[in-house]
């Protein structure tokens, strides 16, 4: 334990470099974990933060998460003025207790006690400490000393203490100092890390995943206890085995009527993949997603029989149920734990721990044709994962233990939005014609999200989706994606009054009417991180305009190409009599690029935005 009793919180003592771009400074942060027993871990958290101005107030709000298995032992704290003199105290009774459940969940046993000190003179310092007793040893808090943007850190320390027979594995990521390991007189073993003087960072667009550049220490037990279930692991194989044996095994029984029904449903289908598709679509039709997380239910699925009865469940329950249905048709499938989200995050190849995932999907290991199923959506095509779980390492929990598997990568050339339109502009400037757009790959659900909406709602959404002035939709149709190469097609017949503004004998309109890129990333001085493009895509537009009779373009027609490793943009315009054809292709390639290429990326987007903003001016032919 590090002694902070005599800490001096005089704000004048903060090193100057820590003040730049800061609204608050963490004077020190001390996070201690002590495993007393397999079902008893004590967290001791102590922090002092100096708030420099009003913007820093939010960093002084204290939030302590707890639930039935993580019990607060005490919270206390004190406030110091600019000179470091104590001016007030606070305790647990000043904290407001609120539900911390996700609003979309039906029930979650998750609560937060929070407190915001109200201080009107800056700078001030809030010092607080609390202890939590956790009844499990499967997951431990990570050490993540890098603060939020706009906050600097003077000192941060982290330690883990246990009896020598409680063995751990740990993973140091970007730690400036290695663990210091010591043994106390009582024989307790302690691992400790520390870090000093971290300056405030500013947000950098297109930055890689935090584990690429921020400091983190993760700790995993060898032997553990969780909600009364014990286990041990040192690698993914063993952890996956534990999940399979203790959380999944024998939870896939389903009523005999359902077994019979599935048999009947798949009669006559010999191709196992087509069988699986039929079963998956039945499951989609039958069930819906409802999240309930209590105790071991956070990790263990409901019984398949319960899902069969109630027709709802969370991701675990629905995956387990789909697995059970497939099993009746002798199709093997694996329960896979994944870190979900549009940003791709993978399980660490060399470090196994239970806290790396937050979602479950199903893998069907057909020979040479591994198929992946997202079981919480009623509409997603069979075999398609979308941008929620694509292209990342996940943990498959099989009867033979766990193994890391990689989900499909949807390349830029798969994620294509292809648009073709034919328009006439009359002498009043009114635009009319048809526009057909196909949305493929991970872009498919930009339209799929309202494909089942009523026509009135679809019209509203489409009007909002396009920047076309005075757009009046005469007809709108969608074609649904139903295979794993997901493509949704939108077909619009439209009119737009005064699309081309007539002014002083000239017409003005935006040549790229549907798809202008107007966002240019901010420039960043002294960028510290590489450029990371999470997902690639392609946009192809071909728009043909019949121009008003007797008028021609006044300015030079666009004909440009910008070609960079991370993307390519080509735009061209051709005039053929009164027909003007505009073609645009934009491609962004996913990947990691050196930090020096960031300015190139900004310039690239600026060039694209300029070209997209091209204002067509028509003048009378002589």
């Amino acid at each position: 334990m590090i002694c902070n009793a005599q800490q001096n919180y005089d704000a004048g003592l903060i090193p100057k470099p820590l003040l730049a771009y800061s609204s608050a400074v963490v004077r020190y942060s001390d996070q201690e974990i002590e495993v007393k027993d397999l079902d008893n871990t004590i967290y001791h958290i102590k922090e002092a933060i100096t708030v420099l101005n009003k913007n820093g107030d939010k960093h002084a709000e204290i939030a302590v998460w707890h639930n039935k298995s993580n019990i607060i032992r005490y919270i206390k704290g004190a406030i110091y003025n600019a000179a470091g003199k104590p001016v007030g105290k606070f305790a647990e009774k000043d904290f407001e207790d609120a539900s911390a459940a996700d609003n979309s969940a039906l029930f979650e046993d998750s609560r937060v006690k929070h407190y915001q000190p109200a201080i009107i003179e800056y700078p001030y310092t809030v010092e607080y400490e609390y202890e939590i007793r956790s009844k499990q040893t499967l997951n431990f808090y990570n050490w993540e000393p890098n603060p939020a943007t706009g906050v600097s850190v003077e000192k941060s320390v982290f330690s883990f203490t246990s009896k020598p027979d409680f063995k751990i594995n740990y993973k140091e990521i970007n730690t400036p100092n290695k663990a210091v390991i010591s043994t106390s007189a009582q024989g307790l073993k302690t691992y400790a890390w520390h870090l000093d003087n971290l300056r405030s960072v500013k947000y950098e667009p297109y930055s890689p995943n935090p584990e690429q550049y921020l400091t983190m220490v993760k700790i995993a037990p060898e032997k553990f206890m969780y909600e009364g279930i014990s286990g041990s692991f040192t690698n993914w194989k063993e952890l996956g085995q534990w999940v399979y044996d203790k959380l999944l095994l024998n939870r896939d029984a389903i009523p005999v009527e359902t077994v019979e029904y599935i048999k009947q449903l798949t009669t006559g289908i010999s191709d196992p993949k087509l069988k699986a598709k039929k079963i998956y679509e039945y499951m989609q039709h039958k069930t819906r997603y409802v999240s309930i997380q209590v105790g071991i239910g956070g990790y263990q699925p409901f019984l398949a029989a319960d899902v069969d009865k109630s027709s709802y469940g969370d991701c675990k329950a629905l995956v387990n149920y789909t697995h059970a249905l497939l099993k009746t048709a002798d199709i093997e499938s694996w329960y896979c734990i994944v870190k979900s989200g549009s940003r791709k995050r993978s399980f660490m190849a060399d470090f196994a721990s239970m806290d790396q995932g937050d979602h479950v999907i199903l893998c069907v290991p057909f020979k040479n044709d591994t198929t992946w199923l997202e079981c919480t959506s009623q509409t997603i095509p069979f075999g398609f994962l979308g941008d929620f779980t694509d292209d990342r390492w996940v943990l498959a929990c099989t009867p033979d233990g766990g193994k890391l598997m990689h989900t499909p990568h949807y390349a830029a050339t798969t994620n294509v939005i292809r648009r073709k339109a034919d328009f006439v502009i009359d002498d009043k400037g009114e635009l009319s014609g048809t526009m057909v757009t196909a949305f493929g790959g991970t872009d498919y659900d930009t339209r799929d999200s309202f494909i089942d909406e009523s026509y009135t709602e679809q019209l509203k959404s489409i009007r909002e989706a396009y920047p076309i002035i005075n757009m009046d939709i005469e007809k709108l149709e969608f074609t649904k994606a139903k295979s794993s190469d997901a493509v949704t097609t939108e077909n619009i017949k439209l009119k737009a009054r005064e699309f081309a503004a007539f002014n002083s004998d000239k017409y003005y309109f935006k040549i790229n009417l549907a798809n202008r890129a107007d966002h240019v990333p901010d420039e960043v001085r002294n960028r510290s991180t590489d450029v990371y493009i999470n997902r690639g895509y392609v946009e192809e537009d071909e728009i043909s305009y019949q121009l008003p009779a007797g008028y021609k373009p006044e300015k030079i027609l666009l004909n440009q190409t910008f070609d960079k490793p991370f993307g390519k943009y080509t735009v061209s315009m051709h005039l053929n009599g009164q027909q003007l054809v505009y073609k645009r292709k934009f491609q962004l390639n996913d990947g990691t690029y050196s930090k020096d290429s960031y300015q190139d990326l900004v310039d690239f987007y600026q060039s694209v935005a300029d070209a997209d903003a091209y204002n067509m001016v028509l003048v009378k032919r002589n």
Partner: protein
Amino acid sequence: MKRLLLIITFSISPIVLWAQDFAFGQYSLDEINMQKYSKDTSAHAVVLKEFGKTWLSSAQDIPLIHEYHAKIKIFDSQAFAQGTIEIPIYKIDNNRYEDITNIEAVTYYQDENGQVQKTELNPKNIFHEKKNRYWDVVKFTLPNLHKGCIIEYKYHLETPLRFNFKTWIFQSDIPKMYSEYEAHLPAVYNYNVSLRGPYKLTKNNAELEKDCFAPGGGVSCDCSKITYIMANIPAFIPEDYMTAPKNFISAIYFELSDYTDMNTGAKMKVTKDWKDVDYDMKHDESFGGQIKRSSLMKDRTQSVIAGKTDELSKAKAIYRLIQGNMKWNHFTGWGSEDGIKKAFDNHSGSVADINLCLIAALNSAGINTEAVLLSTREHGVVNKLYPVETDFNYVVAKANIGGKSYMLDATDPLLPFGLLPLDCINDQGRVMNMDKPSYWMDLVAPEKKSRMFALDLTLQDNGKIKGVMTTYSYGYEALDKRKAIKKFNSVDEFVEDFDTKLKKIKILKSEIHNLDSLDMPLSEKYEIEFDAPANMSSNRIPFNPYFIDRIGENPFKLQERNYPVDRGAMYDDKFILTLHLPKEYMVETVPQNVALAMPLQGGRFLVNYEHIEDGLTLSHVTQFNRSIYSPDEYPYLKEMFNKIIQAENTEIVLKKK
């Protein structure tokens, strides 16, 4: 704006066998086979029947009892969310709280073979979540939802808040075929009943119930059993930029005006007229009691008004003191829960804590100040036919100085003296004077969201454009701008960020004035430089003057509008561009001037080009003279934006001589 409020009157007439709750657990084949709701084919679900009943129990503590029962048809999976029910439960304290019992729920659906199946909710799957100090939520979800299924549920709720007779909301996010509410009002309780919204009751009936209310002591009284029925109620579909949905949703409200204490026979007024409310509020410890604590504030304000002689400068000093000394904890309301002393000394409080403290402090300095109760825009319009205390959710100060009144709210440290937050500018407020009767006043913003934006640019021989960009912000624009700047730790950080946001335009020098002089216009001056839009070697240079702050896309895209458009503040924006050219250049063409006005002085849009000796000037004026536009004005509002965007697309052409 239409007033969608009317008072219901009824007479008691004995009718035998009036409708009552429909039987639980029954459905018809027509309901099962229903494919669409014929009156709204776009509906994903429809309430087939809904029944509610509220009465005062004769049990101990006289709880109010509310029973609810609904049967809903779900056409497709888009409406599965209707199958998850959340019932908020209010807690006064650990001993007095609402209690929900007898929850029953069932789903009827057709299975794969076309057989109708029934699944009941397992009581194990009813969850009780503690949200915060005041609210819990009881939640459950219906099992076995299928396309075309019918769900049915009911519950029984007991509340100790017996004076808050349950409001009945006829209109919801899905249409309803039939909605019925049965209110049992004891004869010794008198209510003001009002119906909001555009729809009329289909049926409305009252009958007498003998000896229905006997809260002990051997006394009893009769009740009026009143039934309100509405059929074929359309879904309520909110629109962007709308004022409070509560103003428009069809619902029936009950406000208790008085009751007779059955033991003593004394008539107890709850709300009757403003005279009573004035008296009650004045003597309410959380309101009048706090306003009267001026002696307490006297010591605390003495130092800031020392040496000041006129009332206005004293008032400003006190306003700044409260503004700077108290942080708003984001609670609203008009009563101070723990008193202003505690709030002032803890530097933290609710709207009431802060503004009642302000009122007491101003009065302590001899400045005549009244409290104004109001309802924020989000909270809806207040009922003015009779007093409804719960209609108000905010209190501000009205300082009367030298024949003028200044409306003050000290919860936001960046508000200038005399400006209320926009959310408070909502219809009328009730002025509460501690010595005189209360009265209504119009809440009108004294200032607009207004800006003067000038660009004085010179095209240079080297192909660069250099010049000065000046902005003066007033009223709500200055407030917004100050907030934007204060998000940064320093003005330099703001300018650095602004420079980044301007992309190709570089800021060479900057000056910002009056950032902390809140009663003055905020001024910003930037020296800027950027590349001319075209190659200088070409003979003709097209130039679009709207390269900063374009609107670009019409915010109003819908064909129709049902509800008023809330534009926030009245808006006044003037953009002036002066462009100086080198000697060898001249202006070839400029776009046409525009002069557009909305009917009834709703707004104006003007574009005016003028040639000057070495170039041109453009003046571009946009005015929206109302903060709220009626649906009738929507097409004009939309067309204003259309014309603004059209003007933004036009270009000036410069030519080499």
